[in-house]
């Protein structure tokens, strides 16, 4: 188990876990999202190879209405 912060919420997750598996666990597979890990963008092309680590801070964002 690792402890990570996703969108400001602390979560315990089974490790090892890459970004594709994370999105699947969050029911976000196939959704258009962008991912930031510890302040750095994770390009979509690296979702399958980037593994989460203890203490990671993740932001997962979408486009919403705004002016």
């Amino acid at each position, binding site marked *: 188990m690792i402890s990570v912060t*996703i*969108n*400001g*919420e602390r979560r315990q997750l089974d490790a090892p876990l890459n970004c594709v598996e994370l999105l699947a666990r*969050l*029911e*976000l597979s196939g*959704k*258009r*999202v*962008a*991912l*930031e890990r510890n*302040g750095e*963008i994770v*390009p*979509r092309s690296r979702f399958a190879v980037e593994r989460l680590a203890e203490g990671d801070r993740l*932001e*997962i*964002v*979408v*486009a*919403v*209405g*705004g*002016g």
Partner: protein
Amino acid sequence: MKPHENLDPLVIAGKPYRSRLLIGTGKYKDFAETRAAVEASGAEIVTVAIRRTNIGQDPKQPSLLEFLPPSKFTLLPNTAGCYTADDAVRTLRLARELLDGHDLVKLEVLGDPKSLYPNVVDTLAAAKTLVQDGFKVMVYTSDDPIIAKQLEEAGCVAVMPLASLIGSGMGILNPWNLQIIIENAKVPVLVDAGVGTASDAAIAMELGCDGVLMNTAVAAAKNPVLMASAMKMAVEAGRAAFLAGRMPKKLYSAAPSSPTTGLITPSPKP
């Protein structure tokens, strides 16, 4: 002139747009109304915000981009809600990744949650970082001509001073500053924020603005779709009036519009 010809495009970062009205997508009743208002406005560039996804939400819920596909509209991700240069830069890097490398963005760094007045110091810092990073930055700012010029010199592709505070609907409070900004600028100047009704948009265009960006004026109207079409006409009318060149203002007119000779004999005074 054929209908599809556009002899007076708005050119931003080298790309021509037919519409000089840019519209925000916030505060609508639902996505269907958002889409209907955008269609009625004729806008090609629409702003979107970048927010955390609601984890645990119904995964079948529709997303904004299903109603406003990037293939049909130029999405302009903004940094609304950011109060530091760093947050704004991170938000737009996420936006670029989200939109498959799309690099045209709207930068705004706010200074105060009550007024939403821009923090121009952080705005300029963020603009420099983003330009360096390859973004095409359309920048929201105050109507200060000096900072507007500095943002242009930092490499922003459009400068977007406020007409009045975001969401206030107060219209153009300082047309003189806007005129100075327009006169000095070599990049497009768009009024962003403060437009309340169609005449405000027309006045902005008559002053020589290259375009107008608005959200609340449309979304908070009783009939947003009708207001969107009113704004389309106002921007077009204001632009045409600007290009036509208005007559000078005079306190008295010594030149009536009708002939001064050939009048019938006046009746004798009773």
